[in-house]
């Protein structure tokens, strides 16, 4: 077996001998999310299949799992974060934990790979940032985040389609010299040009429509956020994305919300509804800035 497996084996072994909750010198504590308490889901597994456990303090609960610092220390992370497969594994594990917590109660997800040196440091965080977390949690309590993505449908005919120009009638005498101008190749190029103008119009119209859709969804939602449209590589769809919105919705308004979505779905736009999500888009605050000189 390779070295890294060997190392992990050792750290598991070391953890077994010590107190799991304390964390040895080679152990870090990976933080997933903060909740306002309640019954946490059982048997939750996080990154590296580590058991997720609660760290309560002052009415808040941090949800963490132990991670070996030979993988989640500064140097290893610098390398690992270059590896998209590694990032995917961690992202999915992180997301799984956050989702399970969000399904159980108000949850403030923490950004990927937030690692502390021990539970004491996590409790310290809950102490220092108690009010910030409490505010976030009360904002998202009882509400769910929905994602709405709108795509310009492929193959939509241009709004005012111009017929391809008819082949220029050419006399037999000039036919040879006009070979380039009246050739099927030229006609093809002209059609492409027409098509292109159509696409530009189409794009403008779709962008306006997306604007309206976002505004209407925002009226039904408690809060809304418009993210950057995703590249086809990320969305997994080849169509052009014209809206990538996130909406925090009260349960009583979810039907209305879905009605707005379906009202905008036509032969022009494909509107995709995703969720419910943990309220990732509505807990985006930066608690890092004022930490200078903070407790380590």
């Amino acid at each position, binding site marked *: 077996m390779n070295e890294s497996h060997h190392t992990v084996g050792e750290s598991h072994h070391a953890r077994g001998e010590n107190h799991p909750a304390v964390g040895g010198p080679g152990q870090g504590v990976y933080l997933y999310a903060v909740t306002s308490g309640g019954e946490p889901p059982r048997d939750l597994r996080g990154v590296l299949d580590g058991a997720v456990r609660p760290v309560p303090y002052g009415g808040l609960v941090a949800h963490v799992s132990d991670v070996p610092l030979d993988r989640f220390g500064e140097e290893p992370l610098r390398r690992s974060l270059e590896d998209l497969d590694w990032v*995917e594994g961690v992202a999915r594990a992180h997301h799984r934990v956050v*989702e399970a917590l969000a399904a159980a109660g108000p949850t403030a997800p923490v950004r990927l790979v937030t690692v502390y040196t021990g539970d004491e440091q996590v409790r310290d965080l809950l102490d220092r940032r108690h009010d910030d977390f409490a505010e976030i949690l009360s904002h998202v309590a009882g509400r769910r985040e929905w994602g709405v993505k709108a795509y310009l449908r492929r193959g939509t005919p241009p709004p005012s389609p111009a017929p391809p120009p008819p082949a220029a009638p050419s006399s037999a005498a000039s036919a040879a010299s006009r070979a380039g101008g009246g050739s099927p190749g030229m006609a093809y190029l002209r059609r492409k040009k027409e098509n292109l103008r159509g696409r530009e119009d189409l794009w403008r119209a779709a962008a306006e429509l997306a604007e309206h859709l976002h505004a209407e969804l925002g009226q039904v939602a408690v809060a809304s956020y418009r993210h950057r449209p995703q590249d086809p590589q990320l969305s997994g769809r080849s169509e052009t994305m014209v809206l990538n919105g996130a909406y925090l919705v009260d349960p009583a308004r979810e039907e209305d919300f879905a009605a707005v979505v379906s009202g905008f779905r036509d032969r022009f736009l494909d509107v995709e*509804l995703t969720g419910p999500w943990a309220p990732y888009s509505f807990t985006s605050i930066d608690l890092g800035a004022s930490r200078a000189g903070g407790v380590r």
Partner: protein
Amino acid sequence: MTDPRSRPVLRESYAPPAVMGRESTNLGDILERVLDRGVVIAGDIRVNLLEIELLTIKLRLVIASVDTAREIGIDWWERDPWLSGKDRELVEENRRLRERLNAVEERLLAWEERTELEPGAYADDRDRQGERQGERRGDRQAEARARRLGGPGRTEPGRE
């Protein structure tokens, strides 16, 4: 024409909002959320902030909207001949060059045929100076020699 309202309220792949649907586990959506959203706190492993910033930037290269993508130099759509004005110009130019090349080749071919098969026609086609040098009419070797020597006032047919 389909009435959009006659469509199903939700895509088949998603549960109605009243029910917990857990279908949306597209990696792009997940990465977008876990890296770019949520509470940002400095952990004790300080490297994470910097590294995540870098990763987020990398991810943004993928997520970027049209405008931001242009700013940071992502231009895949500009390489798409269907969308790109630049490529359209290249295609046009390519076509024009091909036409010109064809025309040149045709003229050259015609000139060669005439000089071989119809010496008289060649002379008619020549520049006016050629007429003064009637004694050389049809004398291709002399013509070629004169061209090589760069005879005064001589113009090569087909090169204008």
